[in-house]
């Protein structure tokens, strides 16, 4: 799954699987310049909202691609579970900062992914995932909450996982437990 995300990120930047960090940086910088608000070359190609989303997507891809060591792929011991595709969500996405759990659920459903599949991929228990989405997880120490939310955001390909995790912890009020990760 992590490799899929990597390939998606590379493709977003117009690169193939052979690209190294220097290629990634160059591709990112070209696009940063190209999609600048003042650039004549893209005049009215995208709506303002789209353009900003694109820049956010490029930045997220850059962050993911240049993260330090990629963990070696672990072969799953059993095939992933077959599940029914869940119903897609109706209406607009919830606001990330005021309803971070609902935001995660919305985007999971929009991608047609069931909780069972998420549990299989992330090794986070289904009950715990349900609690995170329902924002019923104040008992979870902050460091775990942050980690789970970042994992979920990466799985779903959402921009700015760290920001979402911060918003989540602020909203839910998880106590920091050991208090070391800050």
């Amino acid at each position, binding site marked *: 799954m992590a490799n899929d995300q990597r390939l998606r990120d590379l493709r977003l930047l117009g690169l193939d699987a052979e690209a190294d960090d220097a290629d990634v940086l160059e591709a990112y910088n070209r696009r940063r310049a190209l999609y600048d608000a003042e*650039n004549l*070359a893209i005049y009215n*190609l995208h709506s303002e909202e789209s353009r900003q*989303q694109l820049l956010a997507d490029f930045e997220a891809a850059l962050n993911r691609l240049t993260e330090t060591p990629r963990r070696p792929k672990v072969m799953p011991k059993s095939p992933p579970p077959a599940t029914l595709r869940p119903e897609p969500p109706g209406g607009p996405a919830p606001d990330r900062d005021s309803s971070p759990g609902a935001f995660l659920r919305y985007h999971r459903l929009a*991608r047609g992914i069931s909780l069972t599949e998420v549990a299989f991929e992330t090794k986070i228990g289904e009950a715990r995932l349900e609690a995170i989405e329902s924002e019923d997880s104040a008992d979870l120490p902050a460091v775990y909450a942050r980690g789970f939310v970042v994992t979920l955001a990466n799985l779903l390909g959402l921009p700015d996982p760290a920001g979402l995790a911060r918003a989540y912890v602020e909203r839910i009020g998880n106590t920091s437990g050991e208090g070391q990760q800050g």
Partner: protein
Amino acid sequence: MSESIRRTGPRVWAVGGGKGGVGKSVIAANLGVALAQSGQDVVLFDADLGGANLHTLLGMSGPRLGLADFLSKRVASLQEVRAPSPVVGLSLISGARALHDMANPKYSQKEKILRQIARLDADHVVLDIGAGSAFNTLDFFLFADRGILVVVPDPTSIENAYHFLKAAFYRRLNRAKPGEEIREVVGRVMSEMKARGIRSPRDLIDNVADEDTVAGEFLAHQARTFRPGILVNRVSMPDHRRLGEQIGLACRDYFGTEIDFLGCVDDDILVNRSILQRKAHLELYPTSPFGRSIDTLAVGLLERSEVSDGE
């Protein structure tokens, strides 16, 4: 339109731009002249029926026969309305004197024109397709072996160019007649556009490919084979030179296809002078900045077409 006709027929170039006034006709005319000057047999075709200019640019006061005569069935074939121009090796199918109601030929008439263009006895046909994104204009553009989109460094031109490209792209998808199953998948994905974060044809194609390999491949094939070229006209500053390449990159991201940057054409005050003199610029001022740009363009196009012939 049958592939086998095309391989033995002329190479067809379409020059368009979305916006009027960017220099399409001057470029089309002089591209024709450049190709003829290199020894090729060239037909210039004025498909801009509402605003035909090619005859004036070449200093032909108004040929006896033109496209209007073909459309009104006074003659049976395009070959009969081909008029020799002052430039050796270059003939013109003029849009002059087209009656008011001919500016928008019917679909069947247009298809007939395209079939006959493919059968013209020439090495090259250069089409001036005029401004705008009406279906007929798009179809002429899509028919060509290579469509050339002319832009100038000006937001209205850039904006119109993207509008044109989007229209051409979707027109192409529709004309490829996807089967019922493919339509169903695409329709379903498009109804979820917002939720899926689809903001461009490329996003659409990726999402469709995730859903269904066959549908995805159909769309991807259409995207891959949509290859217009961008030409930046009236370049007067160093910044402008980067424009074409950047537009190419933006299009690659947006459409998921290789859109070629064909080069720049320098701004040149002599262009106006040649127009006023009603003679082809390349005949009057072959070594001017404009003249040299057009020669470079012609050579580049010939080289590219040799490469793709070998594919």
